[in-house]
């Protein structure tokens, strides 16, 4: 939760694209941790596999979205440099 709040703060208050991206990933990390923690069902029962599977899916999507954003950002920078 703290990670999520820090991520939002950083996302809104920094101008640089790279910082925004990192902040966004920190936010995502916060959400993933909450999901993993929610899977806890007491000491005896095994953890709930459904949130774990969702987090696994989310990590891969986050990585690919970050890669796309980085490529777009680099491209925008190039275009700005040419002007």
């Amino acid at each position, binding site marked *: 939760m703290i990670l999520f709040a820090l991520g939002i703060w950083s996302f809104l208050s920094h101008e640089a694209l790279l910082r925004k991206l990192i902040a966004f990933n920190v936010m995502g990390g916060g959400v993933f941790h909450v999901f993993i923690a929610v899977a806890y069902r007491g000491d005896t029962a095994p953890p709930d596999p*459904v949130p774990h*599977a969702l987090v696994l899916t989310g990590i891969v999507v986050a990585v690919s979205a970050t890669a796309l954003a980085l*490529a777009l950002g680099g491209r925008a920078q190039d275009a700005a440099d040419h002007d």
Partner: protein
Amino acid sequence: MSRDWSLLLGMLLALLACVLLWVLHGALMDQPGPRLADLAAANVPYSGVSNPVTSVLLNFRAYDTLLELAVVLAALLGIWALGPAVPGFQPSGPVLASMVSWIVPLLILAGGYMLWVGGHAPGGAFQAGALLGAAGVILRLGGDPRAGLPDETMQRWLAVAGTAVFTLVGLALAAAGEGFLTYPTDWAKWLILLIETAATIAIGVTLAAAYVGGRP
């Protein structure tokens, strides 16, 4: 952004964080409602694999995983659409080069192990794909401009392999009267293994190609 605004924003977000914590605390401390966990755990023996996370990913919620592979593919297509890749780095020195030649085969081997072990212990297509992608990243850092990937046509085929195999299996099952992505119990293990293998290769190729960062 001025300092006052930054301060105000910080205070508002601290408030938001407190509200979220309070809501989460309330939701967790409250008597938990019926959860999917029991249903999932009860059906694991029929899913063809004994690792509950894999059975949720590849069997009970296979739709999610199929769409996720499509998202990864879409991201790669977006990256390729942005133009050719920047040239690679200079060739590495002898120390890095020998480390690369040691680590890459190990990563590929570990990826294969991860893929197989996903059936009964933590592991699976995504972890294995990430290892393959890491092998590509290391190759590129070691000076190979193509990150060890094959030529362009082959890369395109490999990148769609995961989504294509997944969809074809689903459609074949639908045509056989089982319903889209509803595996018959006897074949489930082999169908899942087939899909996971294709997904591993596709994810590995996609991640490495995304790292190269442009049309091959």
